[in-house]
Structures are given as C-alpha cells and as structure tokens.
C-alpha cells in the first residue's frame, strides 16, 4: 500500500510543482510534515546530497525520498511518478504547440503561476534558514552571498566552498 501512496504523493508533486527542480521542495517538506516518511532534517541532508550528485536536483531528491520511504522499488516509483505528469502534459502540448503558445488563458495562467512558484520556494527558503542557521552558518552564508553579488558563479563553487568551510568549522566545533 505504501507504494500506491508513494505513487500518488509524487505524481501530485510532478503535477503541481512549478518553476524547476527546487520547486519540488515545498511539496517534499509538506510530505515530511504530513506523511512522516522522513524528517525535515533528513530531507535537508537529502537536498544537500542531491545538489552535489549528477542529474536534475528534482529527480535526485525524488529518487532519494522514494528510497528513504520504501527502498529501491520506492525510488523507482517516486522518480517515475514525479516525471509522469510533465511527460503526459508535454506530449499533449507538443501536439498542439501553436494553439498552446497563443492561447490567452494559458498565458494568463502562466503569468500567475510563475510568482506563485516563486512564493512557495521563498517560503521554503525562509523555513530552511530559520531551522538550520547558527552564528557561524550566518557568517558563511553572508560570505557566499557577497560572492554571488560580484559575479555569476557555478553552483558547484558554492557547494565546494561551503563543504570545505563545514569541514574546517567541524574541527573547531562550530557547526552546532
């Protein structure tokens, strides 16, 4: 039964997440709250791993959450069902591409969905910030923030720097 539930939850993520891989995070946090398949702390670790492994973060984190919930079969179901809605939708849209692009209702809905997806992610960002930050973390975050202002950098740059800083901070027991 867990497999069917897993399918439903991840299908629903694929259907409603809007604005890229990180847009799946609000839904994954919601699952942690409601279904209790994993804790929010575990999810934060999963996101960290997903960011440094190959592939789209959304796929990584779905695979991971599925694995955590119900092993390899769980990850297969989670990954397939998170992609299935967009697969169906994209195929349909490809067939009626011209109508889709010029339909006024479609445009209007995309116009309102984009800020909504952004708002959801911002809420997760604030939540993660409040739950994970301490003073040394704040300093690291401020440093990364200023680094991001000076020029556009590869995401791996931030992850590599923060992993290194984490390792060093660990030696001085600053990671809390």
């Amino acid at each position, binding site marked *: 039964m867990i497999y069917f539930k897993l399918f439903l939850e991840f299908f629903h993520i694929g259907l409603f997440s809007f*604005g*890229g*891989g990180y847009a799946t995070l609000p839904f994954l946090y919601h699952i942690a709250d409601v279904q209790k398949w994993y804790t929010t702390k575990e999810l934060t670790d999963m996101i960290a791993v997903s960011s440094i*492994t190959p592939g*789209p973060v959304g796929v990584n984190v779905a695979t991971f959450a599925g694995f955590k919930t119900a092993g390899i079969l769980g990850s297969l179901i989670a990954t397939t069902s998170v992609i299935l809605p*967009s697969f169906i939708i994209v195929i349909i849209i490809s067939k009626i591409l011209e109508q889709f692009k010029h339909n006024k209702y479609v445009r*209007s*809905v995309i116009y*309102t969905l984009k800020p909504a997806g952004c708002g959801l992610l911002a809420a997760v960002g604030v939540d*993660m910030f409040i739950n994970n930050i301490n003073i040394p973390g704040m300093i690291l975050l401020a440093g990364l923030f200023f680094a991001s202002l000076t020029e556009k950098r590869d995401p791996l740059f931030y992850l590599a720097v923060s992993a290194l800083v984490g390792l060093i901070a660990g030696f001085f027991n600053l990671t809390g």
Partner: protein
Amino acid sequence: MEKTLYQIFKTFFKVGILLLGGGYVILPLLQAELVEKRNWIDDNELCEYYALGQSVPGIIATNTAIFVGYKLKKTAGAIAATIGITLPAFISIIIIAKVIQEIIQLEFVQSIFWGVGIGVLILIFLAIKEMWKKSIVDKFTCAIFFLVFTLSACFKAPPAALIILSIFIGIWIEYQKKIEHGENEE
C-alpha cells in the same frame, strides 16, 4: 549526426551526468550538445523549448528534454530523452543512498553536510532571485507572490492548493479582460 533513439538517449544521458547543482545550467549544456555538436535543433528552437519547459509543471530539465525528444522522434524520442536525462540521477542516488546512511554518522561528514546545507541555501536564494526576475513583472504578480508566500510560510497551506488557487486567479483575470473587452466593443 543520425537521430536514432539510442543517440537521443546517449546525448541526454551525457547531459544528465554533467548536470550538477541545479537544473539552471542545462541551457548551455544542451546548446553545446544539441545545437553545436549534433545540429539536431537550432538556438531559437532550444530557447523556445527551454521557455516552454518552465511553463509546464515539473522539473525544468526533464521538461526541456521531453520537448526536444518529442521534436526529434515523437513519443519514442521523448521517452528516450527522459530516460537518458533521469538515469544518471537515479543511479547515483541509489549508489549513494545506501552508503550515506552509514557514513552520515561520522562527525566530519556531519560537518561537511552542515556546510553544504548552507551552500544549498544560497543556491535556493539564487533560484528565487532568478524566478523573481522572470515572474514578478508588475504589482499584481508581486501581490500573488506575497499572498502565496504568506499562506505557505505562516499558515502552512498545502502547496498544491496554492497552485490551484493561482491557476484560478489566472483564468479569472483573462475572463474579466474578455468581459471588459466585449463591453468596449459594443
């Protein structure tokens, strides 16, 4: 280069391996592989598929892959592209997930995770900034942003409910415009 299903799979598999730290780097990767190396589509088409990939629900990287795959070889091409871009992520997580549960107990690994967690925060912040630039274009979109943000952050409203709410707002706006427009014409 020939557009066989295997070639499509291989191309997206390669892109899937090179995708690190978020789907936002997919555009230059696809440009190099699909446009420059293989000449399967041109720059304009790629940008259009990428934009469309953001206009449908789901993960942008896979959405773009499905669009391009379909364009190259219909549904079979879309399946090949989807499996190609997903497989590296799937395999690497399966391999790592087992190991990680053991090593995460180690203290120095915990420290690294602590650091990477902060790094992820900045990536999320950058993602929000990027989305903000593309989505908040006037007072109205700004209002939707804060409405959804508040309902989600303060009231823990289910994300799907908020998405459905904004779909209805979108339809309602267009409907209102139509009514006004209709009245003006008469």
